[in-house]
């Protein structure tokens, strides 16, 4: 596996700078008003230069940097930025993860458009820079832990690559405090006279296990850059909708169709732009002085553009029979997932056909009922009754949490 790690300023800080562009270059502290007994969430470079650190109390941060501007964290702005990062990286990598200060992408295999890993990593870095509008430091390595350290040792606008097999060599001179383990363990290692990861890597797994129990084996693997952390994509659970208020309530079917069509065009364009497809579609008619009526369904195939969305909506419109003039129409999509057929899907590890079958089975269950598509499993304690010899379970893609 090859992992790309991109380090960037905290998304909370970037969201604040987007909101208040005049604060660029100024000392900015994210977390809230200094009177509040809250910790610093993020700080700009100028604030950090004055001694402000993440996690310290806001009041203390104010003492370090009296000229700083304090801005509360904007969760919505952060969520928007994170979604933009995911969408941007998804176009080039099949599996991505976006954290507050780091983004990860899967660089395993080859990309059809880029001749080598360096070009591919550059493309990802350029895209991320375009999304966040800030220089980022990038590291590429064979594991999450090493990629993260490579990114830390890199500089903004630079890519640090650790070749496969060179992980232990790269880690050897690094100090012990880079290990993501309990500080007590690091302190004990230092007490043994071990001052760098290379020294820890020289020990055997049995020695480490004897001293540190189960953590010893993890330590042994980490010191060699063999962690199996991987990338943890966050499943998309978003729902979007588009509402159109009609110019006067009407019962004219032609106008309602046109309204839904307009919503489908807008939503479809948004789905296409973010390379997503909707697993469920709903249509709502808001009726004057009465309760809204709605219909929803799971389309035969996920809708990823305006045409597919319009086809799915058209199928639902037959179920809606408004008894009074309609004031507004609303088209909603939910269960958004990366659309199939993207270039990046070619890079997805595992059996693509099997994953597609399982995804289709999942969609059929949503459409026709949870018991319509199942996988039988032999019971461990079968007993004498034939119906106790097996159980049913829903099929899932191996390695993906649903």
């Amino acid at each position, binding site marked *: 596996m090859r992992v790309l790690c991109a380090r960037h300023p905290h998304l909370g800080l970037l969201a604040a700078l987007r909101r208040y562009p005049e604060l660029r270059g100024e000392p900015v502290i994210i977390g809230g008003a200094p009177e509040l007994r809250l910790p610093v969430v993020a700080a700009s470079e100028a604030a950090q230069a004055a001694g402000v650190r993440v996690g310290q109390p806001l009041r203390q941060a104010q003492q370090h940097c009296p000229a700083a501007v304090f801005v509360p964290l904007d969760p919505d702005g952060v969520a928007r930025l994170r979604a933009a990062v995911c969408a941007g990286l998804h176009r080039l990598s099949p599996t991505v993860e976006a954290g507050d200060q780091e983004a990860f992408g899967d660089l395993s295999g080859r990309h059809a458009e880029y001749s080598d890993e360096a070009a591919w990593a550059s493309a990802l870095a350029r895209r991320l820079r375009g999304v966040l509008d800030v220089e980022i430091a990038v590291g590429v390595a064979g594991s999450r832990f090493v990629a993260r350290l490579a990114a830390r040792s890199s500089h903004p606008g630079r890519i640090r690559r650790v070749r496969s097999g060179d992980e232990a060599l790269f880690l050897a001179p690094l100090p012990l405090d880079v290990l993501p383990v309990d500080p007590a363990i690091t302190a004990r290692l230092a007490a043994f006279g071990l001052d760098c990861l290379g020294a820890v890597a020289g020990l055997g797994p049995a020695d480490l296990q004897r001293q540190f129990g189960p953590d010893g084996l993890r330590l042994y693997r980490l010191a060699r850059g063999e962690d199996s952390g991987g990338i943890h994509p966050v499943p998309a659970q978003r729902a979007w909708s588009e509402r159109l208020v009609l110019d006067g309530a009407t019962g004219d079917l032609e106008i309602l169709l046109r309204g839904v069509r307009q919503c489908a065009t807008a939503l479809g364009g948004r789905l296409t732009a973010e390379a997503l497809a909707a697993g469920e579609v709903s249509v709502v008619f808001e009726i004057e002085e009465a309760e809204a009526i709605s219909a929803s369904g799971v389309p035969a195939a996920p809708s990823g553009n305006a045409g597919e969305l319009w086809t799915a909506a058209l199928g639902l419109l037959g179920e809606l029979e408004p008894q009074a003039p309609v004031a507004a129409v609303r088209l909603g999509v939910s269960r958004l997932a990366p659309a199939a057929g993207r270039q990046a899907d070619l890079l997805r590890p595992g059996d693509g056909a099997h994953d597609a079958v399982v995804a*289709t089975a999942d969609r059929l269950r949503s459409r026709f009922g949870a018991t319509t598509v*199942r996988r039988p499993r032999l019971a461990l304690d079968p007993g004498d009754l034939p119906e106790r010899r097996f159980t049913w379970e829903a099929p899932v893609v191996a390695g993906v949490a649903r």
Partner: protein
Amino acid sequence: MSDSLSAALATLRSRYGPQALRRGGPPEEAGAWSTAVPVLDGVLTPGGLPSGRVTLLAAAGRGPSGRLTLLQSLAALASRSHDTGYVDLAGTLDPGFLADLGADLDACLVISPGPARWERGLVMARALVAAGMPWVGVALGGDQPRPSLWEHALAALAEAVAKRGAICVVAAPAPVAAPLRHASSLTLVCTAAGWQRANGDVAGLRVRLTTAKSKLGAPGAEATVLLRYPRPYATAEVVGLPSVVVPRLQPIVLPIPDVAGVAARG
């Protein structure tokens, strides 16, 4: 060929193009999935069940015909090499029996659309085939709905099977509806030829298979196979495990290969 016929052919070719008239050749070749059953691979079908086509196991009449047991045996065999879907419209599938037949249940997906929901079952089968399911069996049964309700879904399934090169085996009760007869490239008519008894117990069912239609070869071949019922608890005492896991540990042996006799082409 007479001169006048040659002249007529030349005129037609010059008028409508060289592709307008072509000499008939051997039947169109299709890939085949070997069942490892000599009768099925050699006598009834050339090389095995055709891929990209719909194979129909049709009951000859009312009563037991062995078509569902044969379908389940084939599904069990297929599950050992790839993902397998089983659309249970007949409502008779016992996964334990499938395991006794040697199926790898991890590779089996059972689709239960509900009784007499032929259209829904065929739509679901089509969706799975279009997604890449390489082998799908459809057990039709129950009350047969009007063909107008499901013939479009069947045509869509046949199209998806052809597009993806999948294996599709449909078991249908008698009387077989016209859309099914039309969609199938290979129709094997199943007729129960009597129970196979051993030590006073029923050990299997003898089934006569007749190739009623074949787009891949000449129809009319006939053979009889013995569908031997697996004995689920026979080895349980020996290995101390649920017997249903045993067949997967054994070499690949289809429980239907005992050929009682092969008749000549009719």
